[in-house]
């Protein structure tokens, strides 16, 4: 079951809204957009790495959803279906982007110095500057696509294993394997930069 928080629990469920839309009440779609657009845009941002693309692809996701919702059969949760559309758009865009790399404008000074020195700041530099956020971002970006998607859906979108399996159309065991491998790679990547985790964690078994 999707874990709903606060106001989300109050209104109609996604499935009820979908039914209303399919029955001709198109305003139901507005509610679905308002409920999901921030989450979807956040997921796309973490996959693509730029706000422009996140906005652009989020818009495309909902446009596609609007066109296809009439024939949505409800075989999966609406949210899984929506994530599916978003992930497919991201994969398409990634494939087109292949061979090109990203540079953040923040890396440039007024004279365009980052373009002059070909070295980008290493993850170690970032950590020394206390920028764990960027170190984590670059570690996640370095993961193979399949692992990156699972890590983002689990760690940052807070989906359950079951929801991820449904979204990606793979068995539960595959989700866990990809997650395990992805976490292992992240750990290696970060440990290479001298990050060994923050405070010790008490071993608890719920």
């Amino acid at each position, binding site marked *: 079951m999707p874990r709903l928080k606060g106001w989300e629990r109050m209104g109609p469920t996604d499935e009820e809204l979908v039914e209303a839309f399919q*029955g*001709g009440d*198109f305003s139901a779609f507005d509610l679905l957009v308002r409920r999901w657009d921030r989450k979807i845009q956040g997921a796309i*941002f*973490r996959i693509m*790495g*730029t*706000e*422009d693309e996140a906005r*652009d692809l989020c*818009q495309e996701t909902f*446009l596609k959803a*609007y*066109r296809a919702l*009439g024939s949505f059969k409800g075989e999966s949760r609406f949210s899984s279906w929506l994530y599916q559309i978003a992930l497919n758009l991201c994969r398409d865009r990634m494939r087109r*982007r292949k*061979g*090109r*790399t*990203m*540079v*953040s*404008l*923040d890396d*440039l000074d007024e*004279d*365009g110095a980052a*373009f*002059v020195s*070909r070295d980008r700041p290493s993850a170690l530099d970032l950590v020394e500057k206390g920028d*764990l*956020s*960027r170190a*984590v*971002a670059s570690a*996640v970006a370095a993961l193979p696509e399949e692992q990156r998607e699972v890590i983002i859906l*689990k*760690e*940052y979108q807070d989906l*359950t*294993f079951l929801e991820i399996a449904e979204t990606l159309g793979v068995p539960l*065991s595959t989700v*866990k*394997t990809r*997650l*395990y491998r992805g*976490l292992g790679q*992240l*750990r290696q990547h*970060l440990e290479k930069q001298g*990050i*060994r*985790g*923050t*405070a*010790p*964690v008490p*071993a608890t*078994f*719920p």
Partner: protein
Amino acid sequence: MECTNVRDELIEVLYGEASPDAARRIEAHCAACAACREELDGLRRLRQDLPAWKVPEAGRTLFRSPQLMSRWLPAAVAAALFLTLGGVGGLALAESRFRRLLDEREARHRQEITALKASVAEPVSSVSTEDDAAMFVRVQDLIRQSELRQAAALNASLSAFSERTEQQRRYDLARVSAGLSYLDGKTGQNVARTTELMGYVLQASQKK
């Protein structure tokens, strides 16, 4: 118990999605197996670091071709010559590229509006429960709303593109001046004259 066989359950415990039975099995295993205990602790520590990655309020990025970077110097020199010879023509070329992208995007948005109109119009015929006139008004309203939304999106992307054009211009200028300073060091006086000329061109283009 083989360590590789407990991995799925280890992950379930890590995310609090394990059944009580699985949790007990992992607890027992970790009590006996130092490697798995360390593995679980390590993953827990890692998971404490991951939330440090926040979605920024405003972070902009540009595409950059690695091929271009690997041939940065000749490209910069060529750009400098091109700009010196062609004046602001070089920038105009860069801008026309963005203008084309912009046109493409506008065309796409227009297509989408048309498609949206069509898709909104379709279900109307199948819904007969409401009075036709009232339905017509509602559909009109929906189309207007969606057009407004599309127009807003188009405006947003228009301004994003003009912003990017400006960024591209700054990037080109930076590359050109970097190329020039390289030439400066290499060939001295000759290039100093070019630099002077460049300064003039840069000024002219900024005025423009």
